């Protein structure tokens, strides 16, 4: 979209028409294909030839050579393997991916409900409504072993069962699309690329727990996501897949969009609920948990976009099928966003438990510019930084915490050896100081003090004892902050102190930056 895609699309439509091919060739605007840094990208079906970095000036050649004469334009297909042409279904670096969540992204026209239905869309919902009792649906999700993909990794089936058991005249399903974790853009691309999968997943959740109303809370900045969701909701209502008495089953469910207004903390489920209620997005004290007392005081399921996108395939193919992917403790796939110093930036979906090394070197194409790997931050800015020695740790929700980090939202920020650890730490801490909502003292004061201490180390004014102070302050925040924001804010700094302590020490003791890049 950003790199002149609109112009390429218009040129393509015009050129196809000029060559008289408009009856045979359909130009479709899809959701994201994944490899952001190769954009604009075009895939030509049926064979799935993938053209990269396409400019308006390349369009006549593609139309004439490929569409008219059946010859692949080799200079635009990137580094092809021996086989010849890179196709979208199996490009070299996408080879180890398993697409469950992203099954439709980049394949269908996200603005067409027909294309979604043609790929088994709404079949899982139909099966639930006609063949399964609500309790069976929850049991299937529980058996699949699916855990929340927003970061907290709470078992989804268990979460649903709390709300199902709660007695109330009204229950709600909330889809958390307030994706604010820096480095994360998976939810945006799922919403833009396959909005109906979210509506279907929410309706299934509603049937399972006895809710007839859903809200999708989307970041205000995600203009295109909101636009496509709005269209999808209208289409689903028109076909009777949302609304009252869906498919004649007697079950009713409808969805509304709520737009966020720029607050990272609203990704926290109770802050998100406050925001939908028209208040400042400040987290609530838990318990009570939303499962029994959530939106407007009613039992509420809050699930992340990626979690919900997993629901229709699980119900369609069964929990045993889902358990074939990933690890025993953490079945399924994970969508990662690759950012920072890495050759192939963008979106990937891989089996849970894959190692950092495989992601960086087999899929990500390694570090650019001949530089070395220094560290990777997993789980976004609130995750930990892992050094070279931990490249072979399996990435899942249970193993990474053993090393002080977290899988979180699946953001992976790769940093090469030119970066100064203190400079990066200051960047992380600035973020938390700004995003702390100010409700509880450990987070409000803690984030500010962490930033101050790191800033003075960066200026060459660090004092003996500063590192111990950072450690202690971090522990206090983790133990006493009200919500995940304050509890996670010290995670990056604590892992950096654990794995790169000597670099902090040389800033304090020798007033010297070992990388020579931070201007001390």
């Amino acid at each position, binding site marked *: *979209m*950003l*790199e002149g895609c609109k112009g390429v699309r218009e040129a393509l439509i015009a050129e196809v028409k000029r060559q008289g091919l408009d009856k045979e060739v359909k130009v479709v605007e899809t959701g994201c294909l994944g490899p*952001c*840094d190769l*954009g604009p990208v075009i895939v030509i079906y049926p064979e799935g030839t993938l053209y990269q970095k396409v400019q308006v000036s390349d369009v006549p050649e593609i139309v004439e050579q490929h569409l008219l004469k059946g010859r692949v334009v080799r200079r635009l297909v990137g580094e092809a393997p021996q086989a010849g042409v890179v196709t979208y279904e199996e490009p070299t670096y996408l080879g180890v991916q398993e697409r469950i969540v992203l099954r439709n992204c980049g394949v269908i026209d996200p603005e067409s409900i027909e294309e979604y239905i043609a790929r088994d869309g709404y079949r899982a919902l139909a099966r639930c409504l006609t063949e399964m009792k609500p309790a069976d649906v929850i049991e299937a999700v529980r058996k699949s072993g699916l855990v929340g993909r927003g970061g907290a990794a709470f078992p989804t089936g268990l979460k649903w069962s709390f709300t199902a058991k709660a007695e109330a005249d009204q229950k709600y399903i909330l889809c958390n699309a307030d*994706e*604010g*974790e*820096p*480095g*994360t*853009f998976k939810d*945006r691309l799922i919403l833009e690329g396959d909005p109906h999968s979210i509506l279907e997943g929410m309706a299934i959740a509603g049937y399972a727990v006895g809710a007839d109303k859903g809200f999708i809370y989307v*970041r*205000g*900045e*995600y*203009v295109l996501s909101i636009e496509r969701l709005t269209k999808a909701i209208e289409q689903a209502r028109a076909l009777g897949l949302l609304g009252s008495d869906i498919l004649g089953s007697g079950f009713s469910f409808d969805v509304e969009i*709520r*737009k*966020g*207004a*720029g*607050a*990272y903390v609203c990704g926290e489920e109770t802050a998100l609920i406050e*925001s*939908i*209620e*028209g*208040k*400042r*997005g400040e987290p609530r004290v838990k318990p009570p948990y939303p499962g029994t007392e959530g939106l*407007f005081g009613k039992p509420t399921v809050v699930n992340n976009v990626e979690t919900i996108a997993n629901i229709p395939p699980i119900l369609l193919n069964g929990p045993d099928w889902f358990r074939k992917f990933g690890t025993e403790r953490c079945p399924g796939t994970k969508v990662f*966003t*690759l*950012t*920072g*110093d890495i050759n192939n*930036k*963008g*979106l990937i979906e891989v089996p849970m438990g894959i190692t950092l090394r495989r992601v960086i070197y087999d899929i990500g194409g390694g570090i650019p510019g001949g530089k070395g790997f220094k560290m990777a*931050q997993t789980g976004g*800015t609130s995750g930990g930084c892992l050094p070279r020695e931990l490249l072979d740790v399996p990435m899942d929700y249970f193993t990474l915490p053993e090393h002080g980090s977290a899988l979180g939202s699946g*953001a992976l*920020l790769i*940093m090469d050896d030119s*970066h100064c650890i203190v400079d*990066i730490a200051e*960047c*992380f801490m*600035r*973020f938390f100081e700004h*995003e702390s*909502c100010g409700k509880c003292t450990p987070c409000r004061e803690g984030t500010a003090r962490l930033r101050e201490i790191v800033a003075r180390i960066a200026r060459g004014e660090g004092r003996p004892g500063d590192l111990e102070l950072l450690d202690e302050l971090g522990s206090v925040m983790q133990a006493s902050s009200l919500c995940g924001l304050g509890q996670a804010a010290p995670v990056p700094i604590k892992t950096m102190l654990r794995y790169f302590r000597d670099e902090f020490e040389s800033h304090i003791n020798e007033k010297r930056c070992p990388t020579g890049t931070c201007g001390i």
Partner: protein
Amino acid sequence: MEPTSEGTRACTAKVDGILERYCRKPEALVSILHDVQKEAGYLSEETITQIASGLDVPVSKVYGVATFYSLFSTRPKGRYIIRVCENAPCHVLGAKAVVDALERELGIPMGGTTSDGKFTLEYTSCLGVCGVAPAIMINEAVYGNLTPERVPLILKEYK
């Protein structure tokens, strides 16, 4: 909005229409503020007071919400709002140099508005386009893979 009495009246009517559209429900406050800001450019003291009385809630509540969220502004801003991401993924790929170039080209510091009221320069939370970092957003258009050299070329589109 012009500060003339006629302009004020027109604005009051528009805000009233928005309140009506949401049935004057206090739980719609965030949506109401979105719509009002889109109409009026920012949330002035007068508008906030009007919204509060329209919803029958204290002014402090509306002000509290308006100042909590970063997309809302209680001060007038430039016609083009340039939101710059300096979060870690952009930082790692050189966002600082882009910030310096923007400040230099526009002659204002981060947080400032040009004297002709055309540009406001501010930091934003992550824009979720980290695959093409560093990135900025000008009103609703996103620009990625930025370098200091590209900054003047992009600004030219708006000057």
